[in-house]
């Protein structure tokens, strides 16, 4: 992949000489996506579903085209794609739409300490409300979810398995297909948090065979404020809505109401139409690059940084073996928040914090970490800038006595 030729697709770089290494939080947005957004507002701006006039009908067609493209992107069906406000909302929808009405005291929900808060707290709450129990897959020494460890906590009480596909801190890939197969052998339902995998890996829900899968548009070049919940048709049909109102209802009357079929059943109110319409271009952009080329590119950058970091004595990397483009590290003795300010002075955008993964921070025994994540627009030059700046930070804080 010619990295430098992609950078020009992202207008943020027109204004900012920045090394943007925070894609795991949110990605930058290519011109084509922004163009589609403005195109919708400039030419339609109309509502979907209900308008019989031309503008509204055409807006509906565009909206549905993205649903179709999203389905194809993960090898699902049109009706299996629900648009939500984000991955967080999608995961909450599974927990409260499916979990709440299907869990009983004594049932078990398997999650892990790798989970993002958005795939941890909803289950913690649902467990509290239903009397079910949250069970954690013991992580490997490296911090991975492995099949054997998963098998050791799976049993006939397991009703739901909710695991991250790629950890947003460690970047490890969960062996989710094997796990799903095992889970299904105990009739447990599998919910996959794909927020960090959908942007980087080819996903095939038919192959994984998971029941639910959630991800966010804004981490994969799409607009902010949009997420996707994939659910197997049967699952969605049997799932309760969690929001009620316009568009999700079939018959509304004082005596009782009936719902639309999925996916509309789960999309009450006027949706983020423009964002949905523009997400189409994000999917297209990614597909044009191709996940094989993308992975190779990310790996190259990651390896380059890791090699350099291994020569800086006080840099500790937490995930050297990770399969995805994410380097999580600290400068020993220096709080990551202090480090990030030094990097920011060099126009390097990097995340310092707990990355919405406090249980993992507790597991790692740190308060916070730095995390550099790579994507389509990053270059070896970005890596050089990061490496130089980290070296500078090491020297600076050593001189400051830390």
């Amino acid at each position: 992949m010619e990295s430098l030729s992609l950078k020009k697709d992202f207008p943020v770089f027109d204004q900012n000489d920045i090394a943007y290494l925070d894609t795991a939080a949110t990605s930058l947005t290519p011109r084509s996506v922004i163009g589609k957004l403005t195109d919708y507002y400039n030419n339609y701006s109309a509502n979907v579903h209900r308008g019989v006039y031309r503008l509204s009908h055409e807006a509906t067609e565009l909206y549905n085209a993205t649903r179709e493209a999203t389905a194809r992107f993960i090898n699902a069906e049109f009706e299996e794609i629900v648009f939500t406000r984000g991955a967080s909302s999608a995961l909450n929808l599974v927990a409260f739409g499916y979990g709440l009405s299907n869990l009983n005291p004594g049932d078990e929900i398997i999650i892990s300490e790798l989970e993002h808060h958005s795939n941890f707290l909803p289950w913690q709450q649902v467990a509290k409300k239903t009397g079910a129990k949250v069970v954690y897959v013991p992580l490997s020494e490296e911090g991975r979810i492995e099949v054997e460890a998963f098998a050791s906590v799976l049993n006939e009480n397991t009703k739901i398995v909710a695991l991250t596909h790629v950890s947003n801190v460690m970047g490890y890939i969960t062996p989710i297909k094997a796990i799903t197969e095992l889970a299904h052998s105990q009739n447990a339902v599998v919910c996959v948090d794909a927020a960090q995998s959908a942007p980087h890996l080819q996903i095939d829900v038919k192959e994984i065979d998971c029941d639910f899968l959630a991800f966010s548009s804004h981490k994969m070049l799409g607009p902010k404020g949009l997420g996707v919940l994939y659910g197997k048709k049967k699952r969605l049909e049997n799932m309760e809505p969690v929001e009620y109102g316009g568009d999700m209802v079939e018959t509304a009357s004082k005596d009782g109401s009936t719902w639309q079929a999925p996916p509309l059943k789960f999309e009450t109110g006027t949706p983020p139409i423009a964002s949905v319409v523009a997400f189409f271009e994000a999917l297209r952009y990614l597909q044009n690059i191709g996940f094989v080329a993308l992975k190779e590119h990310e790996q190259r950058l990651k390896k380059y940084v890791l090699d350099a970091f291994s020569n800086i004595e006080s840099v500790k990397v937490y995930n050297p073996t990770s399969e995805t483009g994410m380097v999580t590290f600290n400068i020993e003795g220096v709080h990551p928040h202090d480090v990030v300010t030094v990097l920011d002075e060099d126009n390097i955008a990097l995340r310092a914090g707990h990355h919405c993964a406090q249980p993992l921070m507790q597991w790692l025994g740190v308060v916070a970490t730095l995390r550099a994540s790579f994507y389509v627009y990053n270059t070896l030059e970005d890596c050089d800038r990061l490496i130089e700046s980290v070296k500078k930070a090491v020297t600076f804080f050593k001189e400051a006595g830390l």
Partner: protein
Amino acid sequence: MNRLENLYRKIIMDHYKNPRNKGLTDDTRYKQEHIKNPSCGDDVTIQSFVEDGVVKDIRHDGSGCSICCSSASVLSVLLKDRPVKEALAFSENYTKMIANQPYDETLEFEDALAYQGVRKFPARTKCATIAWKAFESTVKVEDNDE
């Protein structure tokens, strides 16, 4: 004939004003399907009675626009006494025709041909097909027994 006249053909308005086979029956030999089009409130129920693989009778009821209600009436006349297979093929080809998709052009659409005008009004194709969809459900064998 302008676009509107081409949409609201005489035959359509006639079936709208004077619907044939309207009104539902309690006869349990009829299979029933109710579809509501949330985008406009069209609401159609189709009942069909199949015997020996032949559609013996079709009833309908509901409320909706002229395109929707008339097409229920039209199909109740056109598909009656046809073998299920043939009725289904008719319905599916009709739907494709309306959606501007390739269809069996050798087929005689008879009165249903009047709905060709709908093809120029994509926002109305649903109106013209919803009753047919409902009909299809009433005669399709449940092949999905998972």
